[in-house]
């Protein structure tokens, strides 16, 4: 049995919150640079260069890359041989609260009925999965809602098949147009149940940008959808060119014989994600 103090969790989450806002991870930066280098539209290429410059300024000046520092989704993989000394969820929320305060990050969370800002950016959405081992892995995904609002979920009939699912993904991205700040990372969940599909779609965003899924057949679908999205030519910020999306990540799960759930979680180019292993 390994013991982790709640205060250690709070400190880890605080650090993740602050650094996620200022420093884009190498995977998304490299994807933006690669897109800039292959882009054929001069306007789109200029905008991609501007986004790379923006990331550099954010990191050097310790200012958020995007003012929408998001609502936080936090995935915790908790080893079953770990004992948390204190309240795990409270510790996580406290880390978010301190991080958003000390880091000069925008507090964007409000009561859904009154729309009154909570003033602290908490509560965060926290998912805990228990797994074998004695480690605690915390993955932090703050997400702006320009992109989150363009996401979608559809319960397709099995007769629609995978072609129907792919069509829904492409349609969701194309209909989003310039709103979610393309170039996008498109997270997809196919299968399971209503909530499982949405959960997979979001969780797939944690994969390094462009890293193919485990299944070869699914990896082919990811490539196919990415090409179809980019052939539509909406491009960076909807200003044209071949880079509407940087990557499509698809996670799958077996489903009911009567069902074909498809969830599409759209992520903007300011794809902030950080993780720590305790």
């Amino acid at each position, binding site marked *: 049995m390994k013991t982790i103090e709640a205060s250690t969790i709070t400190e880890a989450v605080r650090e993740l919150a602050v650094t996620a806002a200022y420093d884009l991870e190498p995977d998304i930066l490299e994807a933006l640079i690669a897109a800039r280098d292959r882009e054929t539209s001069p306007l789109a290429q200029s905008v991609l260069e501007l986004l790379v*410059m923006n990331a550099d300024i954010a990191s050097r000046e310790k200012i958020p*890359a995007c003012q929408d520092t998001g609502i936080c989704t936090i995935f915790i993989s908790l080893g079953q041989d770990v004992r948390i000394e204190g309240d795990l969820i409270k510790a996580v929320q406290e880390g978010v609260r301190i991080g958003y305060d000390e880091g000069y990050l925008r507090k964007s969370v409000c009561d859904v009925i009154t729309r009154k*800002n909570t003033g602290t950016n908490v509560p965060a959405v926290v998912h805990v999965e228990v797994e074998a081992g004695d480690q605690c892995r915390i993955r932090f995904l703050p997400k702006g809602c320009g992109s989150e609002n363009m996401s979608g979920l559809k319960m397709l009939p099995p007769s629609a098949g995978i072609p129907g699912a792919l069509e829904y993904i492409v349609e969701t991205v194309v209909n989003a147009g310039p709103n979610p700040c393309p170039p996008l990372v498109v997270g997809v969940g196919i299968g399971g149940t209503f909530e499982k599909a949405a959960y997979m779609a979001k969780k797939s965003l944690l994969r390094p940008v462009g890293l193919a899924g485990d299944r070869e057949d699914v990896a082919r679908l990811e490539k196919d959808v990415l090409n179809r999205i980019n052939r539509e030519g909406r491009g960076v910020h909807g200003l044209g060119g071949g880079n509407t999306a940087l990557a499509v990540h698809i996670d799958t799960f077996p489903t009911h014989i009567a069902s074909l759930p498809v969830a599409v979680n759209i992520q903007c180019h300011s794809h902030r994600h950080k993780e720590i292993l305790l």
Partner: protein
Amino acid sequence: MSLLRASSGFAGDFKIIDLPFGNGVVESLRSGDLVHLSGIMYTGRDQTHRRLCAMLDKGKELPVNLAGQLLYYVGPSPARPGRVIGAAGPTTSYRMDTYTPRLLELGLKATLGKGSRSMTVRESMKQHGAIYLAAFGGAGALLSQRIKSVDLVAFEDAGPEAMFRFEVEEFPAVVINDVVGNDFYEQIAAGS
């Protein structure tokens, strides 16, 4: 910074625009034009719009006369001590669509955000000779450097959603909707 300072580094020349707009300037701009905005702009997003329209419903006077002005859809992150502002890129504009025609009726000349506008807003812009511009979404750190001063105008309790007055210098944007009814996003989607 040279990329945006010198037109040679960017795809196309930036038109230099002073704010508030001089006579005929809004009418002269066309969809797809790149502009550098310098001068005064007002800001507002969801809460500010809701409250401005509630004031109009009650026949109250607005905290600022919007005639001839530009309204920027932004909810900045807090400024560090010694800085003017935090990150301050555009928010998605369609959420303001319900409110925009009423402000255009008051003479608001331009709105600045990101993403598409509704047909109703586009019609209203044509009717009132107003334009819509897109700032570069997700470039909040870079854009913050073009904001030279910030003053609170109204709705302080709305936090990041309060209404501010910005003084900006060479703030980059693209014209999406012009006064003759063009929509740059549509033109791109149509492959023109």
